[in-house]
């Protein structure tokens, strides 16, 4: 950095949207003392450097994407998104200002709150100023008398050549003199959707050979460069050199760098150019091209004055940099010297300056690299090793100016230095003066003027530093916050995973209830998440509840349907509770695939918490869709902590309308019960009448399916002893079975030993509990047992109830076994016999099922009947649970 003197001067501030300006679309141009600037909005500002004031503001019908200046014709060309190219006369600016001063004030006030300049008039641009209406234009460049445009077709980029329409003239429709299609492009959106704004615009640059056509000192915009003859001929061929034709270089968002010799771009609609003959692909950067430019790397010979560029450079979004020079090998051949470098990306904008320097801006700062001989950007006098060679490595040097979204090299460069015009993401326009061979500041006599300037410079410097500090601080804050979040997440995970036994610090319990939603009865599950730990669940945590229905019994192949609900927990402090209620069913068809498993888990999304810190600073958000560098985090990465699993079975879903205290409030049957007329008719029919559905018919005329389970009374008494004291065994068993049913209070109060409930699909389920004595099992005499009988007209419901009862008993037995109670003596002979019986039955089941699978539908009726019978026998109460 030795020898570098950077002076930053703020000129003005412009309004910018929340979050700062995005790179890609803002432009800044300098012409004499006038600066033309667009920030990507609809406005184009004209700023006078000398008077340090805003002289005019033009308002266009759409976003402004590009500005070009034609100095000779004193015209400003403006590309307006989805509208076309407008042409403004520079001389007009002053005139219109005096005429239209003060118009559109409201507009300005609302949009331009930030501008610290004296208010300038906002001039709405007349639609007649549109010289080239075309909604698909994405880029353009102006030459002396032609306009080259790049339009996005449905499948291809199209380069078109027009005669330059002059400002004020009528747009001539016949002005097109050439057209060629470039490589394919992916359409912005397919089908009906309106085309979205492209993230990256293509870049155009016009390269001319040196010649009489390009007078020296002629003002060239950033889109035009003059290349040395040798490089020009090497890149574009002898034909282009012979014709002395300008060449349009085009950098596409897909990374392609191609060129078209302007004079070969054919006329006439009947013969559009043949892309194979006209378009030459120079290179492929494989990332969106951000900038194309040229610079002079070799010192000028003494006798020549023309400083034509001898090196073509192109920059990609991720920092890939291409440099091409012409050189002669030892045999005298002209050979291209082509090098690719990588500079830190993402590159927001770039510019080429004097002395072989390439300036490029990234979110973290403005950098400069030297392509001049010897590589050292600050030391052009250093003797070079290989004459004419490009440096093998680029060393970016930071200029400590951050968040510049557009750059332009000012035409008013001081002798031996470079002046850059830059627009920061915060909407500030500034000049950065770089003096390459400044000596160490010598103490000189301080005059008043000097002191004033010095102070101003210092203030500017402070401004730059403060902007940089604020952006860095923001990044640090974000990272700190992410780290804190991660730490808390670690604590929570440890607490949950280490407490395998005993109450967990964070628990989730599930209860079910029937409720009436939208004129239909729906079984709902209520999950209650309790945070009894000392940590709080913050942003990033979510409660995931998976509801998994069981597979239908008759449909062996289908897996149960699973639905996962994710509920973000915004903030759940220590001791906090969150209740979530979900519908379980029945669905539209009235079915509910019991048992339903409800599993709860906590999920911590790394993407949500860490993502922000890994992404580039917010306000300099890249225009790309990807929010952080690929490969850092996979798509759905996070931490999943299972909390609980709860099975909802038939017993929990039974309703007992017959027991309801008032018959008027009996819950309606599910199904299309919403119709008031239907309800009315149903009421008219009276409580005694039956529904005419197939289920009820079956209930009426078929014997109900029955299953019984026998449990040793001793076992039950011990198990229920503590909770059901003072109640006789049968009602206690019933209460125990229905403990998780929300409507079981009635059962409890009435101390019933049999109950008739309604299953979710509307069929009745009968539960009868009675005490029996089993004589032949135990040698010591009769054993007292409890028989649980299940009856239902619907076989499916009977099975579900049986499954639920057996499940509860199993858990009970396992608990008892853990308590190590000794069973009474049994007659083993009898047990063996029962086991043998069951085994034969099971074998029969197996063969029957095999047959069922093998045979077709017609022949399967008989085995199916038999199978049902066998299942019935298997469920018959021959075995007693002890």
């Amino acid at each position, binding site marked *: 950095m030795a020898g570098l003197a950077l002076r930053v001067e703020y000129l003005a501030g412009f309004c910018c949207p929340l979050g700062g300006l995005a790179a890609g679309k803002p432009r800044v141009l300098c012409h004499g003392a006038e600066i033309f600037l667009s920030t990507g909005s609809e406005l184009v500002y004209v700023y006078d450097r000398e008077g340090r004031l805003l002289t005019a503001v033009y308002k266009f019908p759409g976003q402004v994407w590009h500005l070009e200046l034609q100095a000779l014709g004193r015209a400003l060309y403006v590309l307006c998104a989805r509208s*076309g190219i407008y042409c403004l006369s520079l001389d007009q600016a002053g005139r219109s200002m005096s005429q239209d001063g003060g118009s559109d004030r409201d507009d300005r006030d609302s949009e331009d709150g930030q501008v610290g300049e004296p208010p300038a008039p906002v001039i709405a641009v007349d*639609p*007649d100023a*549109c010289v080239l*209406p*075309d*909604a698909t234009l994405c880029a353009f460049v102006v030459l002396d*008398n*032609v306009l080259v445009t790049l339009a996005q*077709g*449905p*499948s291809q980029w199209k380069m078109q*050549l027009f*005669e330059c329409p002059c400002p004020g003239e009528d*747009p001539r*429709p*016949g002005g097109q*003199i*050439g057209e060629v299609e470039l490589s394919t492009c992916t*359409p912005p959106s*397919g*089908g*009906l959707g*309106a085309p979205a704004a492209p993230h990256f615009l293509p870049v155009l640059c016009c390269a001319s050979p040196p*010649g*009489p*056509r390009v007078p020296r000192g002629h003002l060239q915009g950033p889109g035009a460069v003059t290349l040395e*003859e*040798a490089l*020009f*001929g*090497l890149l574009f*061929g*002898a*034909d282009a*050199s*012979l*014709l*002395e034709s300008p060449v349009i270089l085009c950098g596409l968002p897909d990374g392609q760098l191609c060129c078209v010799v*302007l*004079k*070969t*771009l*054919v*006329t*006439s*609609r*009947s*013969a*559009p150019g*043949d892309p194979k*003959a006209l378009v030459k692909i120079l290179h492929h950067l494989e990332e969106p091209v951000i900038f194309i430019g040229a610079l002079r790397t070799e010192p000028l010979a003494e006798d020549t004055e023309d400083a034509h560029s001898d090196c073509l450079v192109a920059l990609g979004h991720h920092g890939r940099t291409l440099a091409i020079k012409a050189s*002669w090998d*030892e*045999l*005298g*051949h*002209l*050979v*291209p010297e082509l090098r690719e470098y990588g500079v830190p990306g993402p590159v927001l904008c770039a510019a080429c300056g004097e002395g072989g320097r390439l300036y490029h801006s990234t979110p973290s700062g403005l950098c400069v690299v030297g392509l001049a001989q010897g590589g050292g950007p600050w030391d052009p006098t250093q003797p070079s090793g290989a004459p004419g060679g490009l440096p093998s490595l680029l060393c970016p040097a930071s200029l400590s100016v951050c968040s510049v979204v557009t750059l332009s090299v000012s035409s008013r460069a001081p002798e031996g230095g470079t002046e850059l015009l830059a627009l920061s993401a915060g909407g500030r326009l500034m000049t950065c003066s770089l003096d390459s061979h400044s000596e160490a500041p010598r103490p000189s006599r301080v005059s008043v003027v000097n002191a004033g300037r010095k102070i101003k410079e210092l203030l500017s410097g402070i401004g730059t530093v403060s902007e940089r500090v604020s952006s860095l601080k923001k990044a640090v804050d974000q990272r700190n916050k992410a780290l804190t979040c991660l730490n808390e997440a670690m604590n929570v995970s440890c607490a949950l995973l280490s407490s395998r036994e005993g109450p967990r610090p964070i628990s989730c319990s599930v209860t079910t209830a029937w409720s009436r939603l939208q004129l239909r009865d729906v079984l709902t599950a209520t999950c209650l998440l309790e945070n009894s730990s000392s940590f709080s669940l913050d942003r990033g945590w979510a409660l995931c509840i998976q509801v998994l229905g069981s597979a239908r019994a008759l449909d062996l192949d289908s897996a149960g349907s699973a639905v996962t609900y994710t509920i973000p927990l915004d903030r759940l402090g220590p001791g906090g509770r969150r209740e979530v209620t979900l519908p379980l069913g029945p669905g539209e068809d009235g079915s509910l695939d019991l048992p339903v498993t409800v599993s709860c888990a906590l999920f911590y999304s790394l993407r949500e918490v860490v993502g922000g810190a890994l992404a580039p600073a917010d306000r300099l958000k890249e225009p790309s869709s990807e929010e952080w560098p690929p490969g850092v985090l996979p798509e759905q990465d996070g931490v999943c902590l299972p909390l609980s699993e709860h099975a909802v079975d038939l017993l929990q879903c039974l309703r007992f309308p017959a027991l309801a205290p008032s018959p008027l409030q009996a819950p309606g049957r599910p199904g299309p019960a919403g119709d008031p007329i239907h309800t009315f008719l149903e009421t008219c029919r009276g409580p005694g009448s039956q529904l005419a559905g197939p289920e009820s018919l079956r209930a009426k005329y078929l014997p109900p399916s029955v299953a019984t389970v026998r449990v040793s009374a001793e076992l039950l008494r011990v198990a229920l002893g503590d909770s059901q004291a003072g109640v006789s065994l049968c009602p206690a068993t019933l209460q125990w079975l229905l403990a998780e049913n929300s409507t079981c209070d009635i059962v409890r109060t009435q101390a019933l030993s049999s109950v008739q409930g309604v299953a979710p699909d509307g069929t009745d389920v009968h539960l009868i509990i009675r005490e029996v004595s089993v004589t032949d099992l135990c040698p010591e005499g009769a054993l007292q047992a409890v028989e649980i009988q299940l009856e239902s007209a619907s076989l499916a419901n009977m099975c579900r109830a049986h499954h639920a009862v057996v499940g509860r008993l199993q858990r009970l037995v396992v608990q008892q076994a853990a308590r190590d109670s000794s069973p009474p003596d049994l007659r083993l002979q009898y047990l063996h016999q029962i086991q043998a019986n069951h085994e034969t039955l099971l074998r029969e089941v197996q063969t029957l099922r095999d047959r069922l699978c093998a045979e077709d539908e017609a022949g399967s009726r008989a085995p199916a009947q038999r199978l049902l019978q066998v299942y019935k026998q298997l469920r018959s109460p021959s075995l007693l649970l002890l």
Partner: protein
Amino acid sequence: MAHKTSGLSSCLDLWREKNDQLVRQTKVAQNLSLSLRRQQLVQDVLEGLRGLLHSLQGLPAAVSVLPLELTVICNFITLRASLAQGFTEDLATDIQRGLERVLETQEQQEAKLEHGLRGLWDSVLHVSSLLPELLPALHHLAGLQAALWLSTDRLGDLTLLLQTLNGSQSRASEEPLLLLKTWRPLAEESDGPLTLQDARSLRGVLLTAFAYRQGLRELITGSLPRALSSLHEAASGLCPWPVLVQVYTALATCLRKMGKPQRAMLYLVEAVKGESTWGPPLLEASRLYQQLGNTAAEIESLELLVEALSITHIPEAPQLLIEVEFLLPRPDPASPLHCGTQSQAKYLLASRCLQTRRAEDAAEHYLDLLALLLDGSEPKFSPPPCPPGPCVPEVFLEATAALIQAGRAQDALTVCEELLNRTSSLLPKRPRLWEDARKGTKESPHCSPWISAIYLLQGQAWVQLGARKEAVSEFSRCLELLFQATPKDKEPGPASSCEHGCTSDVVLQQLRAAALISRGLEWVASGQDNKALQDFLLSVQVCPGNQDASFHLLQTLRRLDRRDEATAFWQRLEAQTELPQEKATRSLPLYLETYLDWIRPPDRETLLEEFRTSLLKTCEL
């Protein structure tokens, strides 16, 4: 329920009204001239149609709404295609969406989706037999699908679609043109929603475009009688004038190739009667005259062609309909109807003049062409004739050759000077070259033949001016470059568009021979026969097939009175001439061909005759 139906129908009326209003708005825009306002209006209509389609497709598909929905899709596609001036693949998704909506009403969306659009059409047309009210709109959509497939050259799909549309009775026919002719699109009801273009007019457009495309294809592949009948079919249809001109020109080309120049001429006369687009018929006329051997008329039609192409054709605002032009193949430089640009025509004219020995005219035309290409002050660009023509340096060389031929050696030297100036940076650096030559480097820099040819022509110009010394030095320079050039290694070096065509060994050989002969002739003229003999001998060695070199050698041997060698050489030559003469100037650039004509010995036959008699005499003696 009754309430619902009335709600739907009132909505339907509303949507229909919206569609009709948008169509009327398009008709208004149609009458505006090409301007921002027209563009905005059309863009508004397009957005309106898009929005309408969104609201229609946001609801479940219903048979009562589908005719309107399909009509809106047709209008949307028509407008998009006419704005894009052609059909693009993304329009297929709009069609597909419409077809899926039809199937949705029949609850068989998944049917045949694996066959793509074609399978979809099969299922839809199968279903639509149950839904007769959908048929008119479906036929319209099928017309658009046919246009899309026609423009993307998917003729198999197109044929199958037409077969299905025509019903099963015509399934036997495989000829798409016949199928298209027999297809009767069902008319939309007169009180139905408005359309931008009805199915019948779309069918007419399809018929003409298809016939023309097929005719052109057959013309290129050479099945002329079939091409003739297809093109007649295209000409009999309704089509705009520029297309008709192209059809007539293609007919003339076809007839010319069939050997019927008079009938071809009749079509060309008909074609140039129009107001614009004279290019293709004039070019065809010049070919016709060339075939007939009428050079004066050929040159005249080429001159007219140049003039015709200098008029900038201002295109009219395109119709907001599907037009025949959209469905034509992309203009291809290889097509017989491609007439190129003004400078390409000018080049054709100039080179024909040079080939037919009209040197003065050729020189003038070449100079005009160079002015056209190089004058930067001209506001209008005119592209160079490359490719398929020669590259720009070769145009310069041909111009030089024409000037020398016309006796304007000084001008020729100026043109060469200009060429060297403009390409100086691309030439190998001289000082190094000399150094390397002295050091005797084995490898030599690559150098395009046209660079050596500059020196060759410069030498010839000096010859014409009588400056022998300069001429010899130019020839030597040329030879030096030529013998350094190794044609095998292509790269590196400044590539030009002519690199692929004429760096062949043949060109290099002929160039070397030409330079050696030219220098030899200069030695002869200055009386240094021994040096001449050396050059001639060398030229025979580098290019054994070149008979001119042999004759010059023979003559010199005779002049030096080296009888035995001359006799031996003559016998070899005699043996060679008895062999079938291979055409040496097969693929030589025009400047080289012209050049070889200059150094051809004028009296080959007499020389051979003299030799024969003198040898016989010696034998008799």
